């Protein structure tokens, strides 16, 4: 463990308020994070031109920290109101954002939803996203995104479920429902994750908003 000494001082310089556990729960590194690392690491990228600091080129946004946050607490319940035709069971998924510092500003919040069995007939499907507010009340639908065959269902939540130019909440609890369209066959959600890009204004100047 890092005691208050050089190691703790270096961790603080690296923006890590506390020493990570020496044995984290190991999990596979998502391919998107490997790809971003390889594009970003000067020794790996071997790109002739210098990379723009404080910018995630592959995602096209400003930022110096990218996090892949796995959803947890996945639970499903029948469609609400009961018997709503064309709507599959509703899922609730929770994201722990407590590791994000209050000073960090989100510049990209991308929800990736993977279904259990990839269905060729996923055309026409749509994913509806809503926020769970306090006291178990489900908020209105925030956005609805179409499914693209072969790709995980994706939704950009910045400006809807997550406010821009503000600190991210400690927890993000989403209600997801799948509208299968003409096929009327329901898929089952297998995994939900967030790709969160933030900018630490102490290390990077905030991009000026467009006039």
């Amino acid at each position: 463990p890092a005691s208050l000494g050089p190691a703790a001082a270096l961790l603080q310089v690296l923006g890590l308020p506390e020493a990570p556990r020496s044995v984290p729960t190991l999990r596979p590194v998502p391919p998107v994070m490997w790809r971003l690392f390889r594009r970003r690491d000067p020794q790996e990228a071997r790109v002739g031109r210098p990379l723009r600091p404080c910018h995630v080129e592959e995602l096209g946004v400003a930022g110096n920290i990218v996090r892949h946050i796995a959803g947890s607490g996945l639970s499903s319940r029948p469609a609400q109101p009961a018997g709503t035709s064309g709507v599959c069971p509703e899922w609730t998924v929770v994201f722990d954002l407590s590791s994000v510092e209050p000073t960090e500003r989100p510049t990209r919040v991308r929800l990736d939803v993977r279904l259990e069995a990839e269905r060729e007939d996923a055309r026409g499907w749509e994913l509806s996203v809503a926020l769970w507010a306090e006291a178990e009340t489900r908020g209105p639908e925030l956005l609805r995104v179409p499914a693209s065959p072969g790709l995980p269902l994706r939704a950009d939540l910045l400006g809807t479920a997550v406010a821009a130019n503000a600190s991210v909440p400690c927890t993000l609890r989403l209600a997801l429902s799948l509208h299968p369209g003409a096929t009327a066959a329901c898929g089952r959600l297998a995994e939900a994750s967030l790709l969160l890009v933030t900018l630490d204004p102490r290390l990077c100047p905030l991009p000026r908003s467009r006039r």
Partner: protein
Amino acid sequence: HMEPRVGGDPAGTCRTRRLHVSFREVGWHRWVIAPRGFLANFCQGTCTLPETLRGPGGPPALNHAVLRALMHAAAPTPGAGSPCCVPERLSPISVLFFDNSDNVVLRHYEDMVVDECGCR
């Protein structure tokens, strides 16, 4: 892992020296996914004349550094001393790691690798 220390011989002029930082050495290898380490380098060497004056192709010498080297050569006084050998050009690194919430995090850090040293 560092180059062996430099004595006062001409090879000891101010320049970049290899310094490899191994995350395993500092005990971070369990939560740092990549890289395993990186070449941070450091600056060491004397800043006397004519080394303080740049050779062809290098960035222009800092006038103040030349002035100090001149004064030091003419009349070494304790305290003033010759210019210091410091980093002049640095480059960033990115680190991929697990944080305490088991998220996979990619962080970009500026000014982590010394590419070039100079007398200041």
